[in-house]
């Protein structure tokens, strides 16, 4: 690709826009998913560090946050350093997080008593330099609160993930309200990959990128996080695709035996 010719007017405009956005901030880099289809859609080539990201579950997962929790755990597993997980409901099962690569040794849980506490701890943790990722489960996230969180993340370069989890299905409408988060995802479960034998195949997610600052929305169909927290895009020619993924093959094998 030839180098783009310099356009001073455009550069000046870009500088002005970024000033207006209130960001003299350095580029902190990004955490790529390792899936070209997804990374290509994100402006930073991955989840921007020093930013707040929102994840919600679709359907019943909005209440249970199992898929969105696992998706977030997979992202956190691919960072370095300690991970802080802030929640009011203490129902995460640590062995499952270990199965997507997030070791219990790295994960510190904060049992907050209210959403206010969650947000306060979230902001405090995002300001801290040295955490790999901060995950918080919140129901409501106002523009003001998310703006504060986003600014806190910018100061430290931390990766913040807000899992939106509601108590009632009707509260999930709150997800339509605008927030200052950089990306917004919705994870819904899809029927798993059919196996040639009885048993549950590898689970699949519909990953909707609902909002990306300076990016576009997109939908992806992926297989759930593997043992290192990586996502694998779905390919429909299954048996052939499985052949080059021995871990997957072994898992299928195990289930078949089970």
């Amino acid at each position, binding site marked *: 690709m030839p180098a783009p010719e310099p356009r001073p007017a455009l550069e000046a405009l870009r500088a002005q826009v970024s000033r207006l956005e209130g960001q003299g901030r350095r580029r902190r880099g990004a955490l790529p998913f390792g899936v070209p289809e997804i990374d290509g859609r994100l402006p930073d080539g991955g989840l921007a560090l020093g930013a707040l990201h929102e994840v919600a579950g679709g359907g019943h997962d909005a209440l249970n946050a*199992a898929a969105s929790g696992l998706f977030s755990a997979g992202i956190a597993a691919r960072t370095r*350093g300690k991970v802080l997980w802030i929640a009011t409901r203490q129902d995460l*099962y640590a062995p*499952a997080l270990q199965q997507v690569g997030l070791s219990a040794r790295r994960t510190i849980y904060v049992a907050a008593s209210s959403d206010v506490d969650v947000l306060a701890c979230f902001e*405090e943790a995002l300001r801290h330099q*040295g955490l790999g990722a901060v995950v918080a489960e919140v129901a409501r996230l106002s523009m003001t609160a998310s703006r504060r969180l986003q600014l806190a993340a910018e100061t430290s370069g931390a990766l913040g993930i807000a899992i939106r989890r509601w108590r009632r299905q009707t509260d999930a409408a709150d997800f339509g309200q605008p927030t200052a988060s950089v990306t917004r995802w919705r994870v819904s479960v899809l029927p798993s990959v059919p196996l040639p034998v009885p048993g549950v195949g590898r689970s699949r997610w519909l990953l909707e990128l609902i909002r990306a600052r300076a990016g576009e929305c997109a939908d992806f169909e992926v297989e759930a996080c593997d043992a290192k927290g990586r996502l694998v895009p779905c390919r429909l020619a299954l048996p052939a695709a499985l052949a080059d993924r021995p871990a997957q093959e072994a898992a299928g094998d195990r289930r078949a035996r089970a």
Partner: protein
Amino acid sequence: MLSVDLAARRLGLRPGTPVAKAQALHPDLLIMDADPDGDRAGLERLALWFQHRIAPIVAPDPPDGIVLDTTGADHLHGGEAVMLENMVTRLKESGITARAAIADTWGAAHALARYGRGRITIVPPGEMAAVIADLPIEALRLPADIIDGLHGLGVSRIGPLAGMPRAPLALRFGPDVARRLDQAFGRQAEAIVPVRLQAPVQVSRNFAEPISAAETIARYITKLVPPLCAGLEEREQGVRRLDLLLHRVDSRTEAVRVATAMPVRDVRRLTRLLCDRIETIDPGFGIERMVLTASLAEPILHRQGVSALIEEEEADVSDLIDTLANRVGMQALYRFAPVESDVPERAVCRVPALAPEEAREWPDHWPRPTRLLPRPEPIQTMAVLPDHPPVFFIWRGIRRRIRCADGPERVFGEWWKGDAELTTVRDYFRVEDTSGETFWVYRTGDGEHGETGSQGWFLHGLFE
């Protein structure tokens, strides 16, 4: 030899025997170098222990004794005899052979504990003179040359010595003899200078004009913390607990306490922890005195830094932990650690956030659900016994048809936890409904035998 134990004494060895001679007599003798400094430190520690347990006025009485003023303390321990018995027994359990005596004076008690007859001696008030008159003069805490001199005069018991005219004694041996006699008989007072615990590091500030604004309080906190940290640095300690007392003009006191997970001596961190709590202070009509005390301090252990060759040093998060713990409570911050149990809810335990990391992990032969319900919820199902997964189930009013399933994974009861679990069994299935949601359900019992469980179905967790 400076000192021998009971076994050696039975062999005929005495303090003062040359080591070479003792070794010649008993070739496999265990000989250790004398450590007077260590002995003194040990005695000091033992004295502190007595101060905690028995009475407040305690002093080491080198080289081998401890003196206590138990006046007014004995009834707390069941009387003098019981107290002494307990003390001696407790020391014996720790491997220390001890003798104890109670008398009106330090000198007399010292003499009786070392030269008295029994393991325990209690002299009733007023009868002391008669009891110690019989003891040898070595019991008087006099220098060895004076003892030798007195032996030369033919004096070997305290009674005759006490009856001798003072002036010639003083002329020949100096004032010590008369002083020790007077101290033993209670004619001259002898104070016990008690051992003291190290006072906590404390700084304070008085205000001529009472303060109340939050910014002013914050400013003075930033002024108090550096001298506190300097005081801690002298002792090579860091704080685990910090108390800030604010004395108000209406003579009430506001208190702020912050705790840290590890010893801290960082001015900025401590200032921050205290300033975070200013909003909880009610200044009333003003604060006239601020006192900052390191109420719990511990030595700071320095850790060796990781060289940058292979391992990358992990960022320190203990300051964040402290900040959060002071907001939500230390017990609300935790990590999960594996427990060796197949029962899912028992396989995890909470450990403190900064507990040492353990090497073990959970086995991952079987997939585990992301969310585990706090307690299994009963579901209505239809399933073919003994080992088929349900065809459908109803949970929280929603009926779900099952498309495919994995299992069963059999979990046996842990008979060592209770007799009821001797035969119990749970069969876990991972089931996926038609919408793709995956659940973790189990049946209590093996599906064949009644004694293994009620054969009821429960939902225990949710997968992705």
